[in-house]
């Protein structure tokens, strides 16, 4: 078996707001009817969490569940568990119309931490990132610079951001540049 590594193999920047490649993370795209009881129980069996409300993310003992669109969830699990959990979900949903795919290797995940993490993202994302508008539990798909991305807060001043792996290196460079010491407007 080949040795899987993340896009930048755990690299991190050295500014006050630190950008880190979070390494490998299991990610499963699950499409289906989010109101269905069967899908609910399959998700809670897989990650131990309820289905999040619109544009929210919930966390359970085995991972997180993020609301991607009205018919799509993203499950965040341990990398080496992703295949097994995908199979488990497909089995639990049986004949119900759905799609569960392990997309772990198609994505990159970064951590943005430090005072001013909001401002780093606010430089590139066309959304309101003030503490009143975006907090822990919120999940937002948008663009950062010109790249499609999604992010959420894990704790105060700490974000996790996912994007396609093919643009992961550019994303890291973009975030690192945006987080350069002395370049933050200190608005929030």
């Amino acid at each position, binding site marked *: 078996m080949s040795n899987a590594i993340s896009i930048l193999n755990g690299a991190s920047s050295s500014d006050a707001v630190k950008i880190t490649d979070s390494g490998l993370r299991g990610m499963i795209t699950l499409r289906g009817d989010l109101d269905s009881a069967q899908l609910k129980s399959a998700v809670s069996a897989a990650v131990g969490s309820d289905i999040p409300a619109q544009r929210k993310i919930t966390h359970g003992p085995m991972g997180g569940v993020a609301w991607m669109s009205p018919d799509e969830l993203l499950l965040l699990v341990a990398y080496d568990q992703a295949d097994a959990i995908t199979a488990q979900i497909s089995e639990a949903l049986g004949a119900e119309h759905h799609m569960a795919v392990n997309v772990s290797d198609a994505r990159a995940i970064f951590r943005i931490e430090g005072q001013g993490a909001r401002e780093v993202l606010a430089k590139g994302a066309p959304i309101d990132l003030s503490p009143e508008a975006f907090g822990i539990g919120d999940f937002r*798909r*948008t663009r950062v610079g010109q790249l499609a991305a999604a992010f959420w807060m894990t704790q105060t001043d700490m974000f996790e951001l996912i994007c396609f792996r093919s643009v992961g290196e550019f994303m890291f460079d973009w975030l690192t540049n945006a987080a350069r010491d002395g370049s933050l407007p200190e608005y929030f």
Partner: protein
Amino acid sequence: MLTLKCPCCGVTAEETEFAPGGEAHLTRFGPGTDDQAFADYLFARKNPRGVHFERWRHAFGCGKWFHAARCTATLEVFGTYTAQTSTPPEELVAKIKAKRPDWEGFA
């Protein structure tokens, strides 16, 4: 710049998060129809100065298509609504009528 509300995921976002999809509510004329109707379906588009109905996609967000009604002259957005319809909702048409009494209505 337009500020649109995506009816699928509920966010109000600015134009760069969306991708335009051209005129809304086209009637498709396919094989077997007369040539003029087919050519008009392919190429003829309204280009109004004023109220216009368009398709948009929330490309950087939830990825879903929806419809928007806006004014091409002032960029005022009257409203957005589901893509699963072939005519604009009546309350939106009434709202536009109230704002633009000269508007000839959705045709």
